[in-house]
C-alpha cells in the first residue's frame, strides 16, 4: 500500500512548526535555477550583432511567449507577459527536470497546482479591473441577465479547480504509471513512458499558460470590443 506515493508532500525534515518536504525543496530548486540562469545571461547583454548563446536562447523564449500571447489574446502582450510567462517557465522547468533521478516534480503535488490556479483566479479580476474599472468588471457577472450571476461565479471557481486538477492529474499519472511499470516491465517500457511524460509535461505547461491567458483575456477584452463596435457604428 505504501510502495507508491501519489503526493510528494511527506515531511523530509522538521524543526518545530517548520516542515520541509520534497515539494517545497524542489520548488526552491526550480526557482533558484530559473533565477540563476536569467541572472547569468542578463548580466552582460549586448545590443550588437554578436550576442551570447544564452541571450539568443532567452530572446527566442521571450519572443515566442510574446507572439503566443498576442495570438491568443488579440491584445498587446506587454502587460500579460510577466505573469503568463512566469507560469509557463516555472511549470515547464519543473516538469522537464523530472528526468533527473531522485527529483520529484513539484507539480505532481496537488498543493502546488492549486496554488498556481489560485494565482490565476486572483489575476483575472486584477487584470480585468485594471483594464476596465471595478463597475464594468463586476457588470460582466450579471451579463446577459441577473439570473446568470450564480452560474458565472460557479464557473469561475470550477475552472480554477479544473486547472489545478488537470495539471496535477497529468503529472502525477506519469509518475504513478512509471512506478507501476517498474513492477512488471522494468527494462525499456519505463524509459518510453518517461519520454512520453516529458512531452505531456511541456504540453500541460503550454495549456496551463494558454488557459490562464484566455481567462485573463476574456475579463479584459469585452470592453475593447464594445468600443470598437461603437466606433465602427458611429
Amino acid at each position, binding site marked *: *500500500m505504501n510502495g*507508491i*506515493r*501519489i*503526493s510528494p508532500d511527506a515531511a523530509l525534515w522538521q524543526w518545530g512548526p517548520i516542515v520541509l518536504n520534497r515539494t517545497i525543496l524542489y520548488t526552491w530548486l526550480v526557482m533558484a535555477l530559473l533565477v540563476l540562469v536569467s541572472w547569468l545571461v542578463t548580466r552582460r547583454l549586448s545590443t550588437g550583432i554578436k550576442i551570447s548563446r544564452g541571450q539568443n536562447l532567452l530572446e527566442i523564449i521571450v519572443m515566442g511567449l510574446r507572439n503566443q500571447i498576442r*495570438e*491568443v489574446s488579440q491584445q498587446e502582450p506587454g502587460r500579460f507577459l510577466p505573469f503568463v510567462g512566469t507560469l509557463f517557465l516555472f511549470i515547464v522547468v519543473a516538469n522537464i527536470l523530472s528526468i533527473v533521478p531522485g527529483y520529484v516534480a513539484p507539480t505532481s503535488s496537488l498543493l502546488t497546482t492549486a496554488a498556481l490556479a489560485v494565482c490565476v483566479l486572483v489575476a483575472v479580476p486584477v487584470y480585468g479591473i485594471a483594464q476596465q474599472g471595478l463597475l464594468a468588471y463586476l457588470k460582466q457577472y450579471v451579463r446577459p441577465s441577473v439570473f446568470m450571476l450564480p452560474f458565472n461565479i460557479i464557473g469561475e471557481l470550477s475552472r480554477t479547480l*479544473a486547472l489545478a*486538477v*488537470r495539471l*496535477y*492529474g*497529468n503529472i*502525477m*499519472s506519469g509518475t*504513478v504509471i512509471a512506478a507501476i511499470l517498474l513492477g512488471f516491465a522494468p527494462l525499456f517500457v519505463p524509459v518510453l513512458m518517461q519520454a512520453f511524460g516529458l512531452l505531456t509535461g511541456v*504540453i*500541460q505547461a*503550454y*495549456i496551463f499558460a*494558454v*488557459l490562464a491567458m*484566455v481567462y485573463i483575456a476574456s475579463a479584459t477584452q469585452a470592453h475593447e470590443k464594445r468600443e470598437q463596435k461603437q466606433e465602427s457604428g458611429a
Partner: protein
Amino acid sequence: MDTNAVIAAVSIFTAGLTIAIGSIAPALGEGRALAQALSAIAQQPDEASTITRTLFVGLAMVESTAIYCFVVSMILIFANPFWNHFLQASAGTQ
C-alpha cells in the same frame, strides 16, 4: 468479511469501474475533435498552426474529465480516506 476487507474490495472494484467508464466518453470526444481538426487542416493547410493550437487546448479540456476519473481512482486505491479511519477504529476495538 470484516469492515476493512469490504472497504478494500469495494475500493478496488470501484476504482477500476471509474476509470473504465470514465475514459469512454473522453476517448470518443477526442477522436471526433482530432478527426475534425485533421479535415480542417486538409482543407486549409495555411491555418494549420492556429488549428493545432486550438486543438491542443481543446483536447486538454476534453481530457480533463478522464483525468478527474483517474485522480478519483488513484485516491480510492492509494489514499483512501476511509481506510485509515476504519483501521484505527478496528485497532481500537481489539
